């Protein structure tokens, strides 16, 4: 204890003329970056770092996950909920390779994480030493930046650069691989935060000519339509987007990752885009005369058949990442800029307007969707419980205020459709990569990143079993996560596609599951199951009001389908409401 207290005092002044180990330099660098939480899993090649961490336990909260994949998904959830950079420690070899899925997920979903991997001593690099793997080359395609450190004195600058790169521009994952001799080596410590790099320009200069051209198109448009992506959340452009939409009376739809960037109860909010999005949002993509894409990248799940996508419309694309502009959809006006900066510059140039008839066209499609699909999902009279009614009731009971973390599959699409997100950064999911097993660890991270929020993980029975070992982490640290498993004993989305497009050949999609309630009890987490509609609302209420962690399994209709849908390769306007 005395040793810890002494070090605590010592770290109040982080700089040190006396040489300290590379491992300690790493810990001090993280403290200098205001890191408060680390998710990790120790092993041979990162033991010096863990030894240094032991002495700084009062400054840094380390969460021992049950698998390295859990650590990085937790760091992603932490970053997405808090807006800060998630931090991960793992060892070399399998510890490092177990990060790959999370790195790829963070890369495609623009999530800032810094991963520290231990590595064998530098003289053993390339020798097939125990737990040596070429993590640098393995992870190059799935990192925004990576660096291998072989000298203790290089650690502070590498950490500073890593944090700067991870959080600026289009955020993303960064990996620092540190050899064991660099962790043991000693050097004086001085920390200099990074504020810029010669070859990296994260914030482009706003081109006012492009902004004026965009404003002109908006002012001339009779049927303008805003598609808002995650860039709105990342740049803090929520209020600017709302102001622009209200001033020019423009309907707003969200991409999957853009959900929660525009309040679902706002009169101009028209819904969710994409393959399993809303009918009106997709149909009117091919009816508008101006598409204003903000902080989104025209993912194939949003566009359907690109050759039939919004051909009638002019396109304004406001996007920070220049490589996304004209990549999929050619822009008539490209505004290469931070979304907030661009929207704030647009606002004074846009004239007040009204588009009542155009907005009413969304409402007509919504009414059709409600009658044919939504009403049946929310208020079924017979049969087993449907996912739609669970999510709808959860949305009502939480008033759309909880942080919702979803996994991947049918439940994810149902949640995106039916949970009415009211506040920014309250929706966390694996969008681009579609990583099953993401939600449980990501929800742990979100709960730690936003400790005053209610965090609910909604997961299917398939994805839950991919990372359920993290129940051990939740139990050990009493992480206040509510876990809602919608169990249809199928890999539901694959089964749906097998039914619709493979003549119901259910090839290896049915699952025989364990008794989840007993399993949760074994982890010491209170759990319940609901199988009947009459008990659903009470079960949800109890689930929400009970202290977390808490688990609720809802047995849902086995062969329920998510509609409407844009069949693969079809145009968004060919969305089908039923088969």
């Amino acid at each position, binding site marked *: 204890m005395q040793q810890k207290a002494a070090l605590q005092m010592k770290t109040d002044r982080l700089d040190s003329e006396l040489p300290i180990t590379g491992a300690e330099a790493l810990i001090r660098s993280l403290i200098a970056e205001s890191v408060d939480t680390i998710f990790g899993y120790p092993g041979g090649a990162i033991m010096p770092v863990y030894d240094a961490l032991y002495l700084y336990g009062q400054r840094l909260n380390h969460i021992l996950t049950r698998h390295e994949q859990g650590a990085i998904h937790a760091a992603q959830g932490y970053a997405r909920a808090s807006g800060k950079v998630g931090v991960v420690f793992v060892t070399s070899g399998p510890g490092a390779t177990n990060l790959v899925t999370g790195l790829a997920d963070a890369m495609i979903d623009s999530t800032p994480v810094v991963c520290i991997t231990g590595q064998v001593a530098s003289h053993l690099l390339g020798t097939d030493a125990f737990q040596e793997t070429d993590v640098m080359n393995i992870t190059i395609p799935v990192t925004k930046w990576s660096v291998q450190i072989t000298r203790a004195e290089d650690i502070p600058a590498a950490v500073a650069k890593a944090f700067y790169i991870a959080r600026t521009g289009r955020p993303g994952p960064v990996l620092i691989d540190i050899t064991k001799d660099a962790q043991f080596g000693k050097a004086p410590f001085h920390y200099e935060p990074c504020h810029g790099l010669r070859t990296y320009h994260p914030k482009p200069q706003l081109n006012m000519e492009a902004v004026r051209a965009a404003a002109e198109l908006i002012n001339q448009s009779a049927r303008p339509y805003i598609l808002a992506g995650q860039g709105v959340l990342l740049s803090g452009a929520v209020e600017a987007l709302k102001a622009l939409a209200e001033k020019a009376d423009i309907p707003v739809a969200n991409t999957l990752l853009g959900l929660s960037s525009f309040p679902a109860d706002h009169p101009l909010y028209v819904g969710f885009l994409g393959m399993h999005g809303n009918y009106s949002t997709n149909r009117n993509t091919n009816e508008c005369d101006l598409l204003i894409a903000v902080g989104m990248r025209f993912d194939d799940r949003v566009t359907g058949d690109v050759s039939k996508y919004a051909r009638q419309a002019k396109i304004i694309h406001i996007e920070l990442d*220049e490589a996304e502009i004209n990549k999929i959809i050619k822009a008539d006006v490209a505004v290469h800029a931070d979304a907030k900066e661009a929207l704030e510059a647009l606002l004074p140039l846009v004239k007040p307007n009204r588009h009542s008839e155009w907005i009413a066209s969304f409402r007509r499609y919504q009414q059709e969707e409600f009658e044919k699909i939504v009403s049946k999902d929310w208020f079924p009279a017979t049969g087993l419980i449907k996912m739609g009614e669970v999510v709808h009731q959860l949305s009502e009971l939480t008033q759309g205020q909880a942080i919702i973390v979803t996994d991947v599959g049918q439940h994810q699409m149902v949640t995106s459709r039916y949970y009415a997100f009211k506040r920014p950064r309250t929706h966390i999911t694996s969008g681009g990569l579609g990583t099953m097993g993401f939600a449980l660890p990501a929800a742990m991270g979100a709960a730690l990143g936003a400790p005053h929020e209610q965090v609910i993980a909604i997961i299917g029975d398939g994805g839950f079993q991919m990372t359920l070992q993290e129940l051990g982490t939740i139990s050990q640290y009493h992480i206040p996560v509510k876990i809602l498993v919608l169990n249809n004993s199928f890999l539901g989305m694959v089964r749906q596609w097998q039914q619709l497009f493979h003549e119901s050949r259910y090839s290896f999609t049915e699952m025989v599951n364990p008794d989840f309630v007993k399993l949760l009890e074994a982890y010491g987490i209170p759990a319940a199951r609901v199988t009947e509609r009459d008990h659903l609302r009470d079960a949800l209420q109890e689930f929400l009001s009970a202290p977390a962690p808490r688990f609720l399994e809802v047995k849902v209709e086995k062969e329920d389908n998510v509609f409407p849908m844009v069949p693969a390769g079809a145009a968004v306007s060919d969305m089908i409401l039923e088969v």
Partner: protein
Amino acid sequence: MKKDFTFIVYAENSFGILNRMINAFNRRRIRIRTLMASEDEQNPHTGSAGFILYTTEDMMRKVKPQIEKFIEVDHAHYEEGTAAFYQYLQQLSVEK
């Protein structure tokens, strides 16, 4: 229509940057016909790489910003044909 392009990249001479470039071409299934990479004689912390790529103009237009967004890349440019590649080689040999 696919044809030859010369693609020149100027970058920091750091570990893995060449791999990142090659990955970007491989991912797009762009054929690399010739490759020359060299560190700068005057400043070994920087360098350049020249490629002859066999692909379409549209693909070149899309892959250029993907390469330029790598942290260590200063800038890149491309032009149709192989003449610029041999000029680049000549320039390197003069510098050396």
